[in-house]
Each structure stands twice: as structure tokens, then as C-alpha cells.
């Protein structure tokens, strides 16, 4: 049995409401909330970045896995906001947590699905008996240009998953990937903010790849939507995952536990991984979880998990995502948010 032996998640305390952003740009917050199904989003603190978020999430994963960090043979971080263009994010994480130095480390990038790529490869290495444990992390301090629709969604957070063969809490039963060259969203070197092709990011990109991956996964597993307790999809906004779920025959009940985006925003590479963490926080033995990510450019990774008896032993060992999402919030106004996100250019 190969699967998740420990997981952890992290969200910053800071929030900004849709109203605060809309006010700045003369937009109608009610129309945005209705249209995008977004209410507020997380904002990274001034000392937070993809690396610190990864460290926090990985700490939770280690607590739950209760393993010797030295036994982790690989650590991969998927993100659109690695703090350095050249210099790995993972080296800081391994040294902070006592992992390595006998460890394979890499930074992944594939828009919003870099996190599930990290999970996928961590799983593959363990399954191939290359190592005992491997960790995959999806984390982001997402970028959205001021005034762009993305500014209402781009948020911060992440989740980490340790794959292994002993004391598995969620076995991975099936995986799939579906990828094509579909340039719906991109950010070139030296650019601060991603560009996107409006509605083209919907049907030909998100829905085509995510829904196709979903169908392949269902076919491969010979399972039906009703066989799952939970379904988790990438969440660029509140509406898209619901529409995707509906297209495939998943119910609102199956989606709602992982549907954290209205209050969290889109944590890009951390989006579906944080949703999976929210589901694992409450899942019961025997529950089946259906998860499909999406990354612009474009592609989707899919996983089917079977929750084991061990889940009960680990759920309370680290902070739960919903606790971070619902509590200890500090709301920022747009000015503070602009300062936190370094949107204000200062004289050095």
C-alpha cells in the first residue's frame, strides 16, 4: 500500500475582503461575489513567502507522520511564486526541518498544478522503492495584477504530503495526467503579474483538461461519482469547481468540504492540495476521495484516495485547515494589502 502517511497545511492569518478590493477599482462587490463566488482571500504576511508556507505545512506533515525526517528521500515544492528565480526553495525547507542532506530536492512549476506534480512524483518514487518516504508540497503567494480579475482570487497558502508505505492514512489507488499546449495564462520572466486570456481560461483550458482528466480517472478506476465521499477540484474561483462537479455528476455535498475557495481565495499551486488537506482533516476510514488539479498551460493531475483506519490517529496531531481558515483572522484594508504585497514601490 502506497499513499499519504502524513499531511499538513498552512494559511496566513491576514485577509482582505472582496469589498475592500472592489472599492478601490470602482467595481460592484455584490456582482463579483455573485459571479465569482468569492468573499475574501488570504494575504501573506510581510515575512511570509512560499518557503515559509512550505516549512509550516511540512511541519504539520511530519507531526502527523511521526517519522524521522532523515528518512525522507525527496522533497519537491510546486509553486508559481518561488522566491528566487534561481535557487531552490526546498533547500531552506529541508534544513529548517532536519531533512537531508541525503535528499533529492527540486522546485516545480506548472501554474496551478505544480503542487500535485510534486505529490505525483513523490508518490512515484516511493512506489518504485527508490526511497522510504518522499514529500510533495504545493504552496504559493499568488500574484494578481492590481485591478485585474485575478486580484480578487490570488491568495496564499499551501499543503504538504509525505508519501510512504507504512502507516498509510490515505492510500493512492489511481492516478492520471492530461496535458496539452493550451496557453491560457502565463507570466514571462521579469514580469510581476501573470497575464491571461479572459474566458479562454475557462472552456478550452480549465474545463477541457480537468473534466477530461476526471473522466479518464473514473474510467481507469471503474468507479462512479457516487462511489466517492468527497471530490476536490482546482479552485480558480468559487464557480468553476462547482460547474465542473456538476458536469460530472458530483453533488454539492461531495464538493463542499473541499470548497474552501470562497473564504481562502485561489492559492494557485496550493489550491487543490489545501482542499485535500481540509478533506483529510475530517475524513473517516473507508472514505474515497476524488481529486483533480488544474494548471494553466495546461494540464490536470488526478488521484483517487482511499482513507484508512490510521487517519483517526493523525488528524488531531497538527492544526487543521478549517481552524486556520475560520479563526484568528486579521483583516487588511487595501492600503495595508498593497504594502504587504509590495505593490507600492518605495525608494530604497
Amino acid at each position, binding site marked *: 500500500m502506497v499513499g499519504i502517511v502524513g499531511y499538513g497545511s498552512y494559511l496566513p492569518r491576514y485577509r482582505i475582503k472582496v469589498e475592500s478590493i472592489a472599492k478601490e477599482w*470602482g*467595481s*460592484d462587490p455584490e*456582482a463579483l461575489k455573485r459571479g465569482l463566488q468569492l468573499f475574501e482571500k488570504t494575504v501573506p504576511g510581510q515575512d511570509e513567502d512560499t518557503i515559509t508556507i512550505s516549512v509550516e505545512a511540512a511541519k504539520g506533515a511530519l507531526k502527523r507522520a511521526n517519522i524521522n525526517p532523515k528518512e525522507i528521500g525527496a522533497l519537491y515544492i510546486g509553486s508559481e511564486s518561488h522566491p528566487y528565480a534561481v535557487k531552490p526553495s526546498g533547500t531552506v525547507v529541508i534544513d529548517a526541518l532536519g531533512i537531508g542532506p541525503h535528499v533529492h530536492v527540486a522546485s516545480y512549476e506548472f501554474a496551478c498544478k505544480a503542487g500535485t506534480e510534486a505529490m505525483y512524483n513523490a508518490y512515484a518514487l516511493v512506489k518504485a522503492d527508490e526511497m522510504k518516504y518522499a514529500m510533495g508540497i504545493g504552496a504559493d503567494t499568488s500574484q494578481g495584477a492590481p485591478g485585474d480579475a485575478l486580484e480578487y482570487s490570488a491568495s496564499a497558502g499551501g499543503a504538504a504530503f509525505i508519501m510512504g508505505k507504512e502507516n498509510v492514512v490515505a492510500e493512492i489507488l489511481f492516478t492520471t495526467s492530461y496535458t496539452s499546449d493550451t496557453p491560457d495564462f502565463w507570466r514571462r520572466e521579469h514580469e510581476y503579474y501573470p497575464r491571461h*486570456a*479572459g*474566458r*479562454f481560461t475557462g*472552456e*478550452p483550458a480549465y474545463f477541457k483538461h480537468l473534466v477530461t482528466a476526471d473522466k479518464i480517472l473514473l474510467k481507469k478506476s471503474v468507479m462512479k461519482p457516487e462511489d466517492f465521499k468527497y471530490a476536490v477540484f482546482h479552485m480558480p474561483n468559487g464557480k468553476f469547481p462547482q460547474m465542473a462537479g456538476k458536469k460530472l455528476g458530483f453533488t454539492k455535498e461531495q464538493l463542499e468540504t473541499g470548497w474552501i475557495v470562497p473564504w481562502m481565495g485561489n492559492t494557485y499551486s496550493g489550491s487543490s492540495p489545501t482542499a485535500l488537506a481540509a478533506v483529510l482533516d475530517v475524513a473517516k476510514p473507508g472514505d474515497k476521495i476524488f481529486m483533480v488539479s488544474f494548471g494553466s498551460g495546461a494540464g490536470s493531475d488526478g488521484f483517487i484516495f482511499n482513507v484508512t483506519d490510521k487517519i483517526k490517529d493523525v488528524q488531531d496531531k497538527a492544526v487543521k485547515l478549517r481552524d486556520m481558515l475560520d479563526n484568528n483572522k486579521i483583516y487588511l484594508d487595501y492600503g495595508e494589502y498593497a504594502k504587504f504585497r509590495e505593490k507600492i514601490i518605495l525608494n530604497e
Partner: protein
Amino acid sequence: MREVAVIGTGMTNFGELWGKSIKDIFVEAALEAIESAGVDHIDSIYVGAMSSGLFVGQEHLGAVMADYLGQNPVPATRVESACASGGASFRAAYHEVASGASDIVLAGGVEKMTDGADVTEALATAADQDYEVYQGITFPGLYAMIANAHMHEFGTKRENLAQVSVKNHKNGSNNPNAQFKSIITVDQVLNSTLVADPLRLLDCSPVSDGGAAVILCPMDIAKKFTGTPVRIKATSQASGTIALHSRDSLTTLDSVKTAAEKAYKMAGLKPADINFAEVHDCFTIAEIVVSEDLGFFEKGKGGAAVEEGKTAMDGLIPINTSGGLKSKGHPVGATGIAQIIELYEQLTGQAGKRQVKNAKIGLAQNMGGSGASCVINILEAI
């Protein structure tokens, strides 16, 4: 000059045609037109396109399209008059046939606007760069000024603008090629996103991809190809000031008035003789102003005419039975040709649920910029 007929038409769906290039779109429309006309060759091609260079980085469209249509070495020329490029393409084809220079001519129009270009910036190149665009004005801004002036001078109501959009969406719901087939309400228009006061999102025609093409030939051989040719009764074009501030009045489009006078004279008709019209409703206010300048309504009464249903399908003069630019879509260079296609379908009784009863004479009005160029064509059923 010889009498000229339209003998075949073809158009793509209008909308976000992400899977099709500008070549695919034009070729699809042109092949459909050639097939529907039943001609075995074409002598010449005109391609109306506003800004293919800025939208997709492709100029030299005449040669490009002749090549991809498999029509080398026939002459092919791109015609540009901003948003009136399609109308101007049709007019050029008309003259080539009427003069006797060619017999079978394809007049087409195409635009591919959803490939990532800055559409507002590309469209703004049709305004006065020195005095308008550099100061930050865009087309929604220019038409918003016209709308404000019209409301101020004539008491036109904000709701009247919305009623244009509601009517055109209703008509477009019956057009299988339309981009937006949805029925909308006045409240939806009034509550849509503000673009340039008083114009809101649902007052504005959309960004679209699409192509349209028609085949023209001399009237005396038209029946050889089709049982349903349509006569081109008149064609006219006029220019007006490029910048809004140069005009005596913000609420009159001189190019439209002049082109209309010329077209009516050529056709030997009066405004009251027109059974239905396709007009350039790039913004809702444009339809109101144009309906006045074409002589359908007294100056200042265009808004009330919409409210009273005079421009509805069953009204005094149905306007934009196709859905207009607002609902059908506005792939700029294709629009003028698509208007001709609506006239053709109405005049040959092929408009289905949109059919205007006893449609004998139709007028198409296509304009560039804020009315700096205007092409009018009048077609007659045979």
C-alpha cells in the same frame, strides 16, 4: 453601369472561435458563399478587415486569403475603412461587376479579435490619434459623449438605450449564427457593469471572431446560378470628420446623412420605402442616432421610436432583425458583409423565425469609427 445581383452567401458563427485562425474563418465563409452561389470560378476577391495586423499580426490579407482559398492567381485586395471595412469591400466588388471589369466577384469580411491583442487599443486606431486617442479617449467614451448629448438635447431616456439592446438580443435569439442568443431585460442592461457613463456593458457590442462572404454577378446572368438572386439597388459611401469635436453637432452623423441621401437618390426611393434595415449598433446610442439620420425618424425621436416598438420585428421599420452588432457579434471587418447576408436572407424569405413579412427592400448601414466613414447599401427582392 450594369445591374448587379447577390447570388450566394456564407458566414461562420460569430463568437469566440478559439479553435479557428483568421484564415480558417475566412475560408469557411468564402467556401460556403461559393457553394451556395453555385459558381465554378471567381474572377476577383475583396477582403474587408479592420486591423488584422494589430489583432493577429497578419496584413496582406487579400493575397493570404486567395492563397488559402485555393484561388491563386485571381486578384485579391484587402479593403479597410475601420468598422465599415465589410461594407466598403462589398461596394468595391459591386463596382468591379457593375463596370464590366469582372463577372463573378467575392466580397468578404473577416476579423479575429480574441487572440490576445489589446482590442480597445486596436479599435481606437480608427479614431483621431492626435486629438482623441492620445488624450485617453476610447470608442465607448466617444459614443458615451454622443449618448449624453442626445439625452441632454432631446430628452432621450437611459431606458431607451437599454431597449435597443433588449430588442436586438430578442432578434438575435432567433439567429443561429449569433454570438449571444440570450434574451435580456432592461433591468439587466441598466445594472450591467458601467463602461463609460452612461453606457454599460450591455450597451456595447462584443469582441468577436467571424467571417462572412457574398458572391456578386451581373443581374442578367444571375438566374443561371440561383433562383433567388437579390438586386443591389444602390450603394453609397460618405466621409465625415474623424474627430467628434470637429462636428457642428454631436448628435448628427453627417456621413450617415450624406450616404443615405446618395443611396436613396440612386435607388429612387424614400426612407418610407425601406421595409427593414440593418444598422451599425456598435453601441446602443448608435442605432438611435443612425435611425434618425437615415430618415426613419425625426431627429431626436429615435429613442421614443424604440420605446414605442417602431423598430421591433413587427414595428413600422424593423431594425437589426439579425440581432445587430450587439447580439449577433461584431467581428469588425465581417460586420458589413453579415448585414448584407441578413438582407439577402430576408429578401429571399429564408430568415426563418426572424422573417419580416413582405420584405421587398432592405437597407444596410455600416460605419467606421464614430461615424467618420459610412457605407450604405440598398437591396431589393426580385
